[in-house]
């Protein structure tokens, strides 16, 4: 038999690096991009240029959060705005009513979001794909309606975060410059990406992806499906909540009409699908395309721009689904993980 050959091949295979490094060009591109992000506020000092990238970073984090539950674990959640809202309201209510620092509010929001993910997830995650999507869409809409009628959190008129100039880093308010917000958003997005980077090469991440592709086969290999779905939902919810907290501190006004709008749930989905769902960089790419698109159409088209950008989103998504269902990032990344013909004997 060819068992000698087999043994030699096995030794060679084991000696390969566990995680093949990205090709040089993509590492160069990544480093250049990271460098640019670090010095961006000094290159582009206009408030609008900084505002644009702050939004991109926050949305990149939100899209990445959705990517965990949908891209990695395969569950299409259409009510993700509820966790954004929990993050925004937890920190703001604590600050407005009890003068608690938003940093503590941030953690409280993450915990509450994870708990909400359990409460929503345990009954709904048993549902098959489409029904889960519809259930979360409706729960997201109910959260908005409840908040709009809940006086303690400001009901329909919302919450205004009082201005505090004494300790900006404690109250997370910066009135002279957007630069601190920029670095907070960059840090939050970077942490979110680090979590998913780690997740994708961990046992948990492998199990989530196995469950996404074939739940029955995953169960036959010892994976507790229900528990893993809830865990993915909790991680995703906590990440979304962080974006909510920072966003609220950034705009200082919580208007439930817009802050809890289903549009946010949908945009996060569009970004991820456009960039590449299940990939590490797809959500960021999607945010980097859609946010400028939406901001600029708003400027060009004035007050009516709000609907124009949604129309362009629709056309883009249609195009991606028809020609590149795995997202734009797949144009770049297809060859990276596969290590070309190198392994072939």
């Amino acid at each position, binding site marked *: 038999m060819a068992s000698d050959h*087999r*043994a030699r*091949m*096995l030794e060679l*295979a*084991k000696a390969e690096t*566990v995680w093949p490094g990205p090709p040089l060009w993509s590492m160069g591109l990544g480093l250049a991009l990271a460098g640019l992000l670090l010095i961006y506020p000094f290159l582009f000092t206009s408030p609008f240029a900084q505002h644009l990238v702050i939004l991109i970073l926050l949305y990149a984090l939100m899209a990445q959060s959705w990517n965990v539950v949908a891209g990695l674990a395969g569950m299409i959640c259409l009510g993700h705005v509820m966790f954004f809202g929990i993050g925004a309201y937890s920190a703001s209510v604590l600050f407005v009513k009890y003068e608690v620092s938003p940093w503590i509010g941030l953690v409280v929001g993450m915990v509450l979001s994870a708990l909400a993910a359990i409460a929503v997830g345990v009954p709904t995650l048993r549902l098959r794909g489409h029904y889960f999507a519809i259930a979360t869409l409706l729960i997201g809409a109910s959260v908005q309606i409840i908040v709009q009628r809940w006086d303690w959190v400001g009901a329909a008129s919302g919450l205004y975060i009082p201005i505090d100039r004494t300790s900006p880093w404690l109250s997370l308010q910066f009135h002279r410059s957007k630069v601190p917000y920029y670095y907070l958003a960059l840090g939050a997005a970077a942490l979110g990406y680090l979590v998913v980077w780690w997740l994708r*090469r*961990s*046992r948990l991440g*492998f*199990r989530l*992806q*196995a469950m*996404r*592709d*074939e739940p*029955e*086969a*995953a*169960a*036959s*290999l*010892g*994976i*507790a*499906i229900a528990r893993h779905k809830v865990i993915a939902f909790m991680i995703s919810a906590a990440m979304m909540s962080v974006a909510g907290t920072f966003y609220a501190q950034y705009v200082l006004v919580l208007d439930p009409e817009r802050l809890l709008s289903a549009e946010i749930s949908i945009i996060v989905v569009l970004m991820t699908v456009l960039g590449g769902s*299940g990939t590490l960089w797809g959500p960021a790419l999607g945010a980097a395309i859609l946010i400028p698109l939406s901001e600029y159409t708003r400027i060009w088209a004035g007050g009516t721009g709000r609907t124009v950008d949604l129309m362009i989103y629709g056309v883009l998504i249609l195009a991606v689904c028809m020609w590149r269902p795995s997202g734009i990032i797949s144009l770049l990344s297809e060859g990276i*993980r*596969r*290590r070309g013909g*190198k*392994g*072939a*004997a």
Partner: protein
Amino acid sequence: MSTTRDMGGTSKSPLLTVEGATKRYGGLAANDGITFDVQEGEILGIIGPNGAGKSTLFDLITGFQPLDSGRVRLAGHDITGLRPDRIAALGVARTFQKLKPFTDLTVTENVMVGALARTANMKAARDQALEALAFVDLLEKRNHFARELSTGQRKRLELARGLAMQPRLILMDEVTGGVDQRTIPGLVDLVLELKANGVTIVTIEHNMEVMMRIADRILALYAGRRIAFGLPAEVRSDAKVVDAYLGGTVDAA
């Protein structure tokens, strides 16, 4: 009652016992009081025409469908009604008739998912996955995505995935079904090598030639019922089995 051939001293208690397994869909009994046992280290073959209830029986044993009545015991412990992942964790692997590769993972990553049932260390899981891939002779494809494999290769992949769990018992649903004739001898050798390594095997097989070669005992099903259980030569010459396979009165049944 159970015909235990001397398999090098395997007259101890069986690894798997199924007692009266019953599953009904409406008025139709997919499994109707099926009883059999599997001795440690043997290959038990399951035969029967399409719709005889073979795959349903696998689902009942591995927890994918609840039994209406009956018991399943693994090494004496009652595992009836446990969740699939709990049963897998007890050392029972299975393959599916309709193959279920993790399409967006590479071949190595697919098999690592199996290995990760036993270890949390990624490097160890990868080494075990590669060993399982070498065993099923799929090492060349290790860095391909699972969706790029042919049917025969997917069967090997699914086998490797189960083996990477280091199971005591593996249930194989039609390993030689739907694959290129030329690859069958290789698959048969694999199964025999597995047995030599001490893994207990239950296999569903349509190819009678293959079955006669590998099985230590055969369970024959027809319309959800057990019609024969014993040594291959006995089962093959059993009148009911001949009937079921050659047509005759069976269509009317």
